[in-house]
């Protein structure tokens, strides 16, 4: 494996204010501590999808990390180095956890990482012992505080009882010293822990995401569980029986977790905390919103929204309440993951954790067209209002057909989104633009060279990298220009927007900055079509 270069060598980094960025400061990654935190997200890894996952050594570290989202919680202040392959314990002086226990634990966990590890029981080869399983890019495990398996992204929970037991042991071991395990870095694998009151969520990844990004993904997963059960139910159940098998209540909901995780691998929306809107003439969109307002004047109706192909067409809300993008993503996930809404009008409870994690809203869900593309959701707090809402839905549908609005939606879906060529900027290959106050984003269609799955994954990795570099709380940046072997990246964050642009490899800094200025003007021009500036209220 090629020697990893210190990234400061080949990644010129600049940081400056948005106004004077033409004359950037010299590269600033000189601080060794900061550079160290990036070693695990080496740019080389991102540009080479076939990067050999062979670990660079047998050193497992529980790294102290000074960069977290939640500052109110204690951090791991433990650093332990042990040779797992032989079970030897290192005698690093500042180590508190160098006991046999943790070494065994890491041994177990290392099974995830070392394909060559010998199987203890050759007779029973389960899926979890296969190379394929181990080499999965991103594992997600959920267990109860008692260590009972709740969910695994790959394989069968029952076969993972030991591994999950170890995970819960690790968490409680660190908890015993009034501390909290956040993540471990082992070779090129990251083990990220999200410890909530009743559940422990663990992600084991050797993908491009940073630990903070994985933590965000895990909190999405946690919220998805709340969305199915509510926090009150979760709390009540585990209060009554600490060792309850939560899988009983989650039967049928695994697909939501699976789907959510798959979406997060390819959709930038969750990373950005923003939703994508269906490009639509603003007049048509206003019409649709007004149609909903006029025909769904119902007490207790909190939100009404139309989704088409995972994109937001319109959202109408009660005056006092806002729909958090995280909740909106969960709604999109619900619609995206279930076929059953296509059969008939449905009436289902859904908890929106950011809105209220203690209770359910009732959702009337139905498709408005025969092709099942345009989905209307009416979310109410009244459990008995199905028939009233069903009537509203019929009226809305009738009007939307009359105004040709449904046709406008399906036309927009047919046209797909827009091509990068429409922006008229040569050498710009792709971009993400997020409007911060609207919590919405836009991006062009994926075109060559990002047509194959591996290339798309790589592009996604580039965005993960760029996003991480800009948002890392240890050293947040406003603007970042970085040249890689296959493309040049430019990220720019201001109060009102976030822009992540991918250029061809030979673009100079000046050219890139000119290009994004042009791009910003283009986005401004298209704003009415690509974004929903204000959500109408009832």
């Amino acid at each position: 494996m090629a020697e990893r270069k210190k990234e400061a060598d080949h990644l010129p980094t600049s940081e400056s204010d948005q106004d004077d960025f033409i004359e950037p400061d010299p590269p600033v990654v000189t601080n060794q501590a900061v550079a160290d935190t990036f070693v695990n997200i080496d740019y080389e890894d991102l540009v080479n999808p076939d990067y050999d996952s062979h670990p660079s050594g047998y050193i497992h570290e529980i790294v102290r990390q000074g960069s977290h989202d939640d500052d109110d919680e204690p951090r791991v202040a433990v650093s332990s180095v042990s040779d797992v392959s032989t079970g030897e314990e290192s005698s690093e002086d500042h180590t508190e956890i160098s006991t046999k226990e943790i070494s065994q634990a890491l041994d177990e966990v290392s099974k995830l990482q070392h394909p060559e590890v010998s199987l203890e029981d050759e007779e029973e080869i389960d899926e979890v012992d296969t190379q394929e399983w181990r080499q999965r890019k991103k594992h997600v495990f959920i267990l109860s505080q008692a260590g009972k398996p709740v969910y695994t992204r790959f394989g069968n929970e029952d076969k993972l009882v030991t591994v999950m037991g170890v995970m819960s042991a690790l968490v409680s071991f660190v908890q015993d010293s009034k501390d909290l395990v956040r993540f471990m870095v082992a070779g090129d694998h990251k083990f990220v822990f999200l410890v909530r009151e009743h559940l422990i969520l663990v992600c084991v990844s050797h993908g491009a995401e940073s630990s903070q990004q994985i933590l965000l993904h895990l909190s999405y997963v946690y919220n998805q569980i709340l969305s199915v059960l509510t926090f009150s139910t979760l709390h009540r159940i585990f209060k009554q029986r600490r060792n309850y098998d939560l899988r009983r209540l989650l039967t049928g909901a695994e697909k939501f977790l699976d789907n959510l995780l798959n979406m997060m691998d390819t959709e930038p929306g969750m990373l950005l905390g923003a939703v994508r809107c269906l490009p639509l003439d603003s007049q048509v969109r206003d019409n649709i919103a007004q149609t909903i307002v006029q025909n769904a004047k119902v007490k207790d109706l909190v939100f009404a929204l139309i989704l088409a192909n995972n994109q937001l067409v319109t959202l109408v809300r009660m005056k006092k309440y806002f729909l958090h993008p995280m909740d909106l993503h969960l709604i999109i996930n619900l619609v995206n993951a279930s076929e059953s809404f296509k059969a008939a009008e449905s009436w289902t409870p859904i908890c929106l954790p950011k809105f209220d994690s203690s209770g359910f809203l009732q959702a009337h869900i139905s498709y408005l067209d025969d092709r099942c593309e345009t989905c209307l959701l009416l979310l109410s707090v009244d459990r008995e209002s199905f028939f009233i809402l069903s009537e509203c839905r019929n009226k809305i549908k009738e009007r939307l057909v009359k105004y040709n609005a449904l046709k406008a939606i399906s036309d927009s879906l047919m046209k797909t989104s827009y091509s990068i060529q429409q922006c008229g900027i040569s050498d710009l290959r792709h971009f993400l633009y997020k409007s911060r106050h609207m919590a919405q984003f836009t991006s062009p269609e994926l075109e060559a060279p990002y047509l194959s799955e591996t290339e798309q994954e790589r592009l996604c990795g580039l965005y993960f990298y760029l996003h991480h570099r800009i948002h890392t709380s240890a050293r947040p940046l406003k603007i970042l220009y970085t040249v890689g072997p296959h493309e040049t990246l430019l990220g720019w964050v201001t109060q009102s927007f976030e822009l992540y642009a991918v250029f061809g490899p030979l673009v100079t800094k000046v050219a890139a900055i000119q290009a994004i200025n042009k791009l910003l003007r283009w986005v401004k021009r298209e704003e009415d079509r690509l974004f929903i500036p204000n959500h109408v209220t009832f």
Partner: protein
Amino acid sequence: MKSIEAKVVVLGSQGVGKTSVVIRYVGGMFSKAVSPTIGASFFTYKMTLNNYRIKLQVWDTAGQERFRSMAPMYYRKANAAMLIYDLTSADSFYDIKDWVGELKKNVDTPIVMCLVGNKCDMSDCREVTSIDAEEYASTIGALNHETSALKNTEAYSVTRVLLVTRVAITEFAILLAPP
């Protein structure tokens, strides 16, 4: 011609084929791609019988445990309950007893019950005998039918399956219709 409206609730364990049976008699077809119901789906079905125009409002409920607490919302106002079990699964048949107990306890108005054994095309794997089902149905005063929402043998051709489910639903209607 008079018209009647009746509410029907479909209950049963997960995976027994509630939605498939409903789609079979509402839409007259079988879809392989039926996915687990989330919450409950609402169907309407219209028919004419003995000079009555009958409109059935069918609540097809989800069998998953987490939706169990929502069931009263649907059966409380129902005129009829279709209790569906999978005749290749004894457990799903025992679950019916829970449902019947719950209905008896919580529903004050008279409710017509119909026991439906689904998947009778798979008689090789049968775990619930016709005799058991018949006996149980008579003790709770329910109608009893066997059906297959799928048709994969000649004996259970589309028409026949349609007939069986229709018969079941027609009997509901007769009971509901005033004399």
